[in-house]
C-alpha cells in the first residue's frame, strides 16, 4: 500500500467527523481519539498527540469570538486552570510513561481509553442541559472572585446577565477532567459543560463557550509534554486538523438547517462501538482474547 493512503484516509475520516460533530452535538476531539485508535495503525502516542492539537486548534479558533461577545469569561477559567494545568500535564506524563515503561503499555492505554469512553457515553446520555440556570446564592469564593458577566442574546433580543457559584465544588471535577484530557488527548467539553452548567450555574451558552476557553489552556499545557517526547507527527496532525476544520464548517452549515436526534444517537452508538473495539483490541494485544482484526 502506498504511503499516502493513510494520510489521505485520515483526511477523509476527520472530514466526516467534522461534518457529523456539529450535527450530533458530540465533540470532534472525543470521537477522533477512540475511533482512530480502533481503526488506524498509528501508535496511541501519536493519536493522543494529534487529538490534543486538534482539540486545541478548534478551541483556539472559536474562543476569541465567544470572548468578545461576553460568552467566554476569563474570570471563571483563571482559578480553574491553576488546578487543571497541573493535572493535564500530569495526565500527559502518565500516559506517555505507561507506553514507554511497559512493553504492553500501548494495550493498557487502549483498554483505559475504552473504559473512559464508556464513562463519556454515560455522561452524554444522562446529563441534562439547563439553558438559564437559576443561581439563588453565590458562595463566598465565587463572590470574592466576582464570577459574573453578560452577553447579548439575539433569541431574546436583550442582554442576559449571569453569575456563577460553587467554585470550590467544581475545582476537583476540573482537576480530574484535566488529567483525562492530558492522558488521552481528548477534548473535554463532554465534562466541562455539565460542570459549568449544572454545578456552577452558568447558562448553557456561557458553559459551552467557557469550556472552549478552558480547553485552550489545558490542551496547550499538555501539548508541551507530547512535543518534548516527539509524540506529535505532522504526517498525522496536518491531515487531521485540515480534515476536521473543513468538515466542521460544512457541518455547522448543515446543523443550522437540521439537527435530527437520530444522528446524535447513531454517533453515540458509534462511540459505544469504538469503546468495545478499543477494549477488545487492548485485551487481544495482551493475549486475553483472540485477535480478529
Amino acid at each position, binding site marked *: 500500500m502506498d504511503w499516502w493512503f493513510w494520510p489521505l484516509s485520515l483526511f477523509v475520516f476527520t472530514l466526516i467527523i467534522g461534518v457529523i460533530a456539529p450535527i450530533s452535538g458530540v465533540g470532534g476531539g472525543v470521537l477522533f481519539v477512540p475511533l482512530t485508535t480502533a481503526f488506524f495503525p498509528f501508535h496511541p502516542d501519536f493519536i493522543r498527540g494529534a487529538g490534543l492539537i486538534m482539540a486545541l*486548534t478548534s478551541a483556539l479558533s472559536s474562543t*476569541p*469570538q465567544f470572548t468578545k461577545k461576553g460568552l467566554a469569561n476569563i*474570570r471563571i477559567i483563571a482559578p480553574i486552570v491553576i488546578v487543571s494545568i*497541573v493535572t493535564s500535564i500530569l495526565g500527559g506524563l502518565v500516559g506517555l510513561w505507561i507506553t*514507554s515503561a511497559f512493553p504492553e503499555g500501548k494495550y493498557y492505554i487502549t483498554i483505559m481509553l475504552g473504559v473512559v469512553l464508556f464513562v463519556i457515553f454515560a455522561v452524554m446520555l444522562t446529563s441534562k442541559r439547563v439553558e438559564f440556570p437559576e443561581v439563588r446564592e453565590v458562595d463566598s469564593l465565587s463572590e470574592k472572585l466576582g464570577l459574573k458577566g*453578560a452577553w*447579548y442574546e439575539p433569541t431574546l433580543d436583550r442582554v442576559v446577565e449571569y453569575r456563577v457559584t460553587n467554585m470550590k465544588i467544581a475545582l476537583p471535577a476540573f482537576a480530574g477532567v484535566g488529567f483525562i484530557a492530558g492522558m488521552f488527548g481528548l477534548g473535554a467539553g463532554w465534562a466541562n459543560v455539565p460542570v459549568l452548567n449544572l454545578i456552577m450555574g452558568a447558562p448553557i451558552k456561557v458553559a459551552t463557550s467557557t469550556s472552549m476557553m478552558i480547553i485552550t*489552556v489545558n490542551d496547550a499545557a499538555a501539548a508541551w509534554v507530547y512535543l518534548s517526547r516527539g509524540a506529535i507527527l505532522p*504526517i498525522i496532525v496536518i491531515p487531521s486538523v485540515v480534515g476536521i476544520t473543513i468538515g466542521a464548517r460544512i457541518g455547522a452549515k448543515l446543523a443550522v438547517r437540521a439537527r435530527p436526534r437520530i444522528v446524535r444517537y447513531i454517533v453515540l452508538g458509534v462511540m459505544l462501538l469504538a469503546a468495545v473495539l478499543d477494549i477488545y483490541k487492548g485485551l487481544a494485544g495482551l493475549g486475553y482474547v483472540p485477535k480478529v482484526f
Partner: protein
Amino acid sequence: MREVKVDPMNTAFARTMEILTYIGLILMIVPGLIYILTGTGYVDTVKAVENWGKSASEFWKSTKGIEVHGYSWFLNNLSYFDCLSIIGIVILAVTPLFSMIASMVKADTKYKIILLIAVIEFVVAIVRPLFMHVTGH
C-alpha cells in the same frame, strides 16, 4: 439594548489569542502540506509510515537513531518542512500563555495574582523537559 461592555481582561485575552492563532495555523498548515505533498522532510514520509505503529520513543530510535528529550529534535532541523510545521504547533501551544499575560495587564490585583500563578505553571510546563526526564527510562 445590544451593547455589552466586555471586561477588558477578556478583550485583551481574545485579541492576543486571535492574532497568534492565525499565525500559528498558517505556520503549521502550509509547511505541513508541503511536507506531505513532497514526501520529504527530517523524517521521510515512507519511514514515518513504516514506524508510526511504534511508541514515540521507539519511533525516533528507528527513524533517526535518536532519543527525544526536549525540543532540539525540531529546533535543530528547521530547514525541513515537517519541523517548520512543528513551529506552527509551538505557536499554537504558546498562544494561551501570551493571552493570559495580555489579560494580566488589564486585571485587578486579585486576578493579576491568580493569572500570574497560571502563567508560572505554564512556563514550568514548557521548560520542564529541559531539566527533567520523567519518562520511565
